[in-house]
């Protein structure tokens, strides 16, 4: 848990590194770091379900960005059972959207010279990660949240 939190703090530090005129390097790295913070948070929570603590780090290496995006797209657009409280479904959708969007923004931040960042644009993304942390922590024990964690690792099938 601490590593993901530290990454998120680092994203904010980079975002505010140059208060007056932020450099493209700082803004881009802040967005990239925010994505990795959320990536690590979800992987750590998923891996924590593995009973053998001494092999969790190996399990964590099995997660794949593309599969996680696909799982997040499903979670974001799913119709949830009416028994799932609406706030829980809403927060799960928000977390999944944050993950999917931040993954793409990370790609732009790291690879696209055509994309110019300003502080508001970058700050919106870092804060999206921050909100996702808060929302995730409030729903992480819910069944649908745990099912989402499983789906991040596997080619999930309903039923």
């Amino acid at each position, binding site marked *: 848990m601490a590593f993901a939190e530290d990454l998120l703090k680092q994203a904010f530090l980079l975002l505010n590194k140059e208060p007056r005129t932020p450099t493209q390097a700082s803004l881009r790295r802040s967005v990239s770091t925010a994505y990795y913070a959320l990536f690590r948070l979800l992987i750590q929570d998923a891996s924590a379900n593995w009973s053998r603590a001494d092999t969790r780090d190996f399990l964590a290496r099995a997660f794949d960005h*593309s599969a996680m*995006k696909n799982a997040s*797209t499903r979670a*974001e*657009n799913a119709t949830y059972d009416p028994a799932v409280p609406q706030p829980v479904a809403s927060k799960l959708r*928000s977390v999944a*959207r944050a993950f*999917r*969007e931040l*993954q*793409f*923004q990370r*790609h*732009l931040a790291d690879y696209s010279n*055509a*994309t*110019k960042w*300003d502080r*508001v*644009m970058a*700050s*919106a993304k870092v*804060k*999206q990660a*921050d*909100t996702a942390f808060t929302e995730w922590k409030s729903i992480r024990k819910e069944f649908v949240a745990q099912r989402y964690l499983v789906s991040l690792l596997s080619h999930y099938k309903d039923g």
Partner: protein
Amino acid sequence: MQVPIGLVNQTQLKDAVDAAAKTLQAREVRHVRFTLGSDASGEPSIFFGILLTPEASQDLRLADVTGRVAGLLFDQLQPYNRWGLQPYFNFTSSPAHFRNPSWI
């Protein structure tokens, strides 16, 4: 569900985006525009560019405003389920940045 961008009725999509944008609060959002393209995975995507007011861009309000605006547009448009498009939301408070075609 993925729909090739060529199969999206862009007139209907623009009308839907315009209608959704009208429901946003004018004291927070000045303009909404969008482009269609592919994301890093090659999926058909809609990229929203959203120009915020200076008030809405204040640091203490930014997370609330951007989360709410993206949520409203997502809920009203259902970009993936209705149009087969992955939505991405970009925010700025700079009119010059907003007008830059390569911004989003």
